[in-house]
């Protein structure tokens, strides 16, 4: 199929046009115009992306490339505003435009009554444009522009309802946490340029190949790197990848930079679904996948990533257990699932990570939009303790939630099952077989944590469903009659996402399960093979591998089922047992979880307080004393004292002027005389 490469540029530009139209004229043109512009352009982007995807599949070439314009050409530093559409970008692009379009459609209903309707769609379109730039970027700088742009939009949309100071604080928190990560990212980019002499992905990967190929001459690397002469290249690559990972932890909310994401729920729910669940937060994972060969060169970095991923997954799941805000539960769940993805990357299972990005985008967008429906129905009530028994009034939303929960809990043949199972299997493989034949204790530990998280995930998700939809109603009497199912385009978006959440797993069915319907031998690992990220496990014969896979699968399904069963029992028939535990033996544990392991307090003591103290000292010393006192006040004092002095001369008293003038003339005359005398 023919595909004009220059159309590639349209994919991010169309939403950008939407931003300009909605931002400049939206308020004047009315809601109809805003809705049409806001939704039609991302959908067009999706259509173009899909056409490009088909063209890519049908062709032999690895990628479709298009250079929009030359951006920076300084000496050997050449950067173009260029886009690359390869397997990885294609997957991300389709996710961003597809789910983005659905969420745009959903928002037309959800934001219907908002007074800043046009502004919302302008921001949402801008976000889509930047996100597409991020995933399509041909080099690290274009990626960085998108990276910062989505951060900006995230900030703008978290603080969308800026009349409330708490929302603005949440936006600032997100922005500052992201800045910390971005610093790491930038340093990583600088180091990459020093090592490879380029920020272009293709050229970086060529450099990486020449490093991993021992026989390659060193000259293929950037020859102008004397400062690195004494540093081993391995150490440098570890440093680069760690720096990039710091950037990823900021954007993807990993330890230690995750506390902003739960606070980001202050934004409108479609925003939480699009930015803080489906797309932007996965850009860290995308970055790691994009530079997979580079990350693979540094086992140390991969170890760190695995550790942080596993810890984040477990910690966030533990916190999610006790949250009462429906969106906070989903937020911590997102953090936890992102931890899973990084765990997979740490285990070297990039395709599993990307697969989980995709399926997570399906079911988490579904859950968020579902929670949006609940919140919409409850007139912006988010506390689950004030819900309960909504199943009767919101049967459709209930169904949506059940599907989402089953998908995220890893119930067999839902989309989450496939991706989560693949991740857990990669952990299981490392823990009990070992990539190099050796088994490491920390791998077993990480796998244990990940498995435990799977159980906890199933538990807290079903807890959420139970608290919201089951049991007796705690809804405010005034609200009861107003609870209603969403209208307009909202059910459509939910239905599409529900279908994707159920059947999304077909994208990357493992070879083990090729006997499933619609699959077959040749249709396994579609996603992994298409993106070129899939690596078959080596050093083991097929029977033994299958045995391991079955074991892992049974364990993870068993753990998930246990979590679901426990939640069903404790929040149903066994409620008394739970209450007894919460008020008795487990009181302290629950409090720790409720208080998010005191992470915010630790930040307060370790960073915020010293920073505030330093700021205060700076304020007194530099601002008040040096700038206000010495520089501003001092210059004013000098001017004023001169003024005081010369003011006396400007008395308006003409004889005084004349006298001054006469004396001046006298002095001049005298000087002229002396000069003439001296000359003559």
């Amino acid at each position, binding site marked *: 199929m023919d595909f004009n490469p220059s159309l590639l540029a349209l994919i991010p530009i169309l939403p950008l046009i939407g931003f300009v139209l909605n931002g400049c004229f939206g308020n004047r043109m009315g809601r109809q115009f805003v809705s049409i512009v806001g939704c039609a352009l991302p959908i067009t982007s999706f259509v173009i992306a899909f056409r490009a995807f088909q063209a890519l599949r049908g062709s032999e070439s690895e990628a479709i490339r298009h250079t929009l314009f030359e951006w920076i050409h300084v000496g050997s530093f050449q950067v173009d505003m260029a886009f690359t559409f390869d397997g990885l970008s294609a997957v991300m692009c389709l996710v961003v435009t597809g789910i983005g379009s659905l969420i745009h459609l959903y928002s037309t209903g959800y934001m219907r009554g908002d007074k800043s309707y046009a502004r919302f769609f302008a921001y949402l379109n801008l976000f889509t444009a930047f996100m597409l730039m991020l995933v399509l970027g041909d080099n690290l700088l274009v990626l960085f522009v998108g990276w910062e742009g989505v951060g900006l939009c995230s900030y703008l949309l978290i603080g969308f309802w800026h009349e409330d100071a708490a929302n603005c604080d949440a936006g600032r928190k997100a922005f500052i946490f992201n800045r910390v990560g971005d610093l790491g990212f930038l340093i990583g980019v600088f180091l990459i340029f020093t090592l490879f002499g380029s920020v272009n992905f293709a050229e970086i990967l060529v450099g990486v190949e020449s490093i991993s190929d021992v026989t390659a001459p060193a000259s293929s690397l950037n020859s102008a790197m004397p400062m690195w002469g004494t540093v081993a290249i391995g150490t440098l690559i570890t440093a680069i990848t760690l720096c990039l990972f710091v950037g990823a932890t900021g954007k993807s909310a990993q330890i230690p930079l995750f506390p902003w994401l739960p606070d980001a729920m202050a934004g409108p729910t479609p925003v939480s679904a699009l930015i803080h669940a489906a797309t932007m937060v996965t850009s860290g994972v995308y970055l790691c996948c994009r530079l997979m060969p580079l990350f693979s060169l540094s086992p140390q970095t991969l170890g760190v990533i695995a550790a942080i991923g596993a810890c984040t997954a477990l910690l966030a799941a533990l916190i999610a257990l006790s949250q009462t805000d429906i969106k906070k539960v989903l937020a911590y769940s997102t953090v936890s699932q992102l931890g899973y993805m990084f765990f997979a990357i740490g285990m070297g299972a990039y395709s599993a990570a990307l697969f989980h990005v995709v399926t997570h985008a399906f079911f988490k967008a579904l859950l968020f939009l579902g929670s949006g429906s609940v919140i919409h129905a409850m007139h912006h009530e988010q506390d689950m303790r004030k819900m309960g028994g909504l199943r009767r009034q919101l049967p459709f939303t209930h169904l949506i939630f059940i599907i989402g929960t089953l998908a995220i809990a890893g119930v067999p043949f839902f989309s989450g099952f496939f991706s989560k199972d693949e991740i857990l299997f990669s952990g299981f493989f490392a823990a009990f077989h070992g990539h190099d034949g050796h088994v490491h204790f920390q791998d077993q530990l990480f796998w244990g944590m990940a498995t435990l998280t799977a159980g906890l995930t199933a538990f807290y998700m079903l807890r959420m469903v139970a608290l919201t939809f089951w049991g007796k109603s705690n809804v405010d009497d005034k609200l009861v009659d107003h609870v209603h199912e969403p209208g307009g385009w909202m059910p459509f978006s939910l239905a599409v996402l529900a279908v994707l959440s159920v059947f999304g797993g077909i994208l990357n069915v493992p070879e083990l399960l090729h006997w499933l319907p619609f699959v077959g031998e040749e249709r396994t690992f579609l996603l992994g093979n298409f993106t070129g990220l899939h690596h078959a496990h080596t050093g083991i014969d097929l029977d033994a591998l299958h045995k391991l896979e079955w074991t892992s699968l049974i364990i993870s399904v068993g753990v998930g089922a246990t979590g679901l069963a426990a939640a069903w029992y404790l929040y149903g028939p066994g409620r008394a047992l739970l209450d007894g535990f919460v008020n008795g033996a487990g009181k302290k544990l629950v409090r720790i979880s409720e208080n998010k392991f005191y992470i915010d307090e630790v930040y307060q003591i370790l960073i915020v307080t010293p920073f505030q103290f330093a700021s205060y000292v700076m304020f007194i010393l530099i601002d008040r004393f040096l700038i206000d006192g010495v520089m501003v006040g001092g210059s004013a004092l000098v001017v004023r004292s001169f003024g005081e002095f010369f003011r006396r001369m400007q008395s*308006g008293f*003409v*004889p005084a002027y004349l006298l001054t003038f006469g004396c001046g003339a006298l002095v001049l005359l005298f000087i002229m005389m002396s000069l003439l005398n001296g000359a003559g």
Partner: protein
Amino acid sequence: MFSLTSCLYISAFLFSTGVYGVLGRRNILVVLMSLELMLNAVNLALVAFGRAYAAQDLAAAHTGQIFALMVIAVAAAEAAVGLSIVLLVWRRWQSIDVRDLCRMHG
């Protein structure tokens, strides 16, 4: 007796007398007249110098005279503006005292 130096002496004397009138008197009209006096002193010097150089170059004499003519024009302008101000000051305060001019700055 009729020589450049004596012209210059007269000019210097008239100029100094003008300086005294400007600095020492408080009647605006007299001050203005003293200014005219000083300008005339300068004119005299200019023309005398021009005449002295005319033996070598006729244009030098003309330059001095043209300069003096310009000074006369400037003096006329100065007198016109100065005297109208004096009239206004008189209308406002019934005074022609130089010291009262400082009341103009409010």
